[in-house]
């Protein structure tokens, strides 16, 4: 069942220019991060680590959450138009299928973004003359970053599902970014999706996470994703469909 829904979701993305939007972000992040690293090599002496911090500072802190918000708004925009709500709610598919399929597609697209970022990061590092010796923490950063972004995605999907405006959930996501920053500063970083992203990707501090912290990280991601999904599915089932 869910395979069918995911297939339908992917079909809906045909002819759309969302790929462009998703690709632009890593490109700019890496461009500027790398440029900044290159120009300040005297100060930034830690090779790949310094490059990572430059590239990811704005990517992980700010632009990935906002990009995720835009992506999720786009996923629901298609249904808000042309009374498509009537159509998706009268096919023999459970509400869970509809929401989870969208979440799955968001996860897949964010994975693409993360991988693309990695490729660009690697290439730019080599171009800047760094020896091939990638930091060992890199896979951890990438995976945790991806998971945290999907967690943010589940939150944004719920917002965009209920709010017809395209921009408003993005605006709310922006607020959440600042709240996440605040949480991080007050050492509560592991309890909020946006700060989970900061922590997970090693944006501000590059000491790794202890095994205990790792477990907490994954648990929090799971918690938020499940809570959001259950909330969304409940809302889909119980409320009147406003096409």
């Amino acid at each position, binding site marked *: 069942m869910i395979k069918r829904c995911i297939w339908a979701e992917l079909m809906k993305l045909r002819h759309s220019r969302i790929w462009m939007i998703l690709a632009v972000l890593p490109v700019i992040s890496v461009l500027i991060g790398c440029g900044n690293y290159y120009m300040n090599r005297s100060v930034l002496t830690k090779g790949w680590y310094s490059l990572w911090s430059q590239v990811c500072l704005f990517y992980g802190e700010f632009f990935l959450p906002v990009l995720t918000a835009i992506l999720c708004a786009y996923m629901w925009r298609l249904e808000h138009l042309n009374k498509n709500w009537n159509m998706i709610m*009268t096919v023999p598919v459970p509400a869970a299928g509809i929401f989870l399929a969208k979440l799955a597609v968001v996860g897949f697209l964010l994975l693409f973004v993360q991988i693309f970022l990695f490729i660009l990061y690697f290439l730019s590092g080599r171009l800047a003359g760094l020896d091939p010796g990638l930091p060992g923490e890199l896979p951890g950063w990438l995976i945790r970053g991806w998971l945290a972004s999907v967690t943010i995605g589940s939150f944004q999907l719920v917002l965009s599902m209920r709010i017809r405006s395209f921009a408003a959930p993005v605006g709310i996501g922006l607020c959440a970014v600042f709240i996440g920053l605040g949480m991080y500063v007050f050492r509560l970083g592991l309890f909020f999706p946006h700060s989970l992203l900061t922590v997970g990707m090693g944006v501000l501090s590059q000491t790794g996470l202890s095994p205990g912290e790792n477990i907490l990280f994954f648990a929090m991601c799971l918690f938020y994703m499940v809570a959001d999904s259950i909330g969304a599915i409940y809302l889909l089932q119980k409320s009147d469909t406003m096409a």
Partner: protein
Amino acid sequence: MNEVVSTYNLSKKYGGEYRVKDVNLSVREGNIYGFLGPNGAGKTTTLKMILGLTKPTDGKVKVFGKVLEENREFILKQTGALIESPSYYGHLTGLENMRVVQRLRDLPDRNVVEALRIVRLEKQKDKKVSEYSLGMKQRLGIAMAIVSFPKLLILDEPTNGLDPAGIGEIRELIKSLPLQYGMTVLISSHLLSEIEQTATAVGIINNGVMIFQGSLEDLKKGKQPDILVKTGNNWLAQKLLTEKGYSPSVDGEFLVFRNLTDEQVPNVNRILTAGNIDVYRIEEQKKSLESIFLDMTGKESSL
């Protein structure tokens, strides 16, 4: 014959007002049920409740003998619907839109081909739907509703935006559905003349309340046809007849008598000939659905 759709005291409240109150709709298998009512009467709201799009404030919906709330997927699998206006993804072609529905409903390719053929959209299937005319979008909506060849088909104003030829085609299509595909059709429309030609059962809703439900014959039975009389001097004739206790109204060249019994007709004739008035015509005008409808709802039938 089974009841395909039955509602029990179905009601929906918005704010403090009941948009739909205590509606007991009943659609029998194999019927083409025409659901009529003026604008804002509650037709679309009722249809939405039957499909589960709107949750009722009160009452129950049963489809295929099963309660809607608990058997939603089972019921929707065998139901096709076009409600409010046709839904579509503008940036996809007609065929791609059909493929989305096909995938969600798990249907074979031949259904899609057949549905498109039936609504005559094969030539335009590779055009983006945002470039379709209103009529084409409507036909696509119908195709998406019938693609699963469901046991129950719910159509909300399917002839919207179609030209007379298109309306005729859809009429023929709908009439053929019970016979050819074993479908039961629940159709709401404003085109009373179309319903008159297509439907086998009728339900009329006004201000959220069902005021009639039954076969088309039953509806027309209670209403006597009008008797129209054309005379040489209508004005004098009317005066004479009013004095004798009749109350004809004037409609163009005719005097119109409502609810005249068979026995009264020759009386009228005698009165007129006794008064030396020439009687040119005595005609019967069967009540059209439209006039019955207008009588019952007392409103202008909306376009």
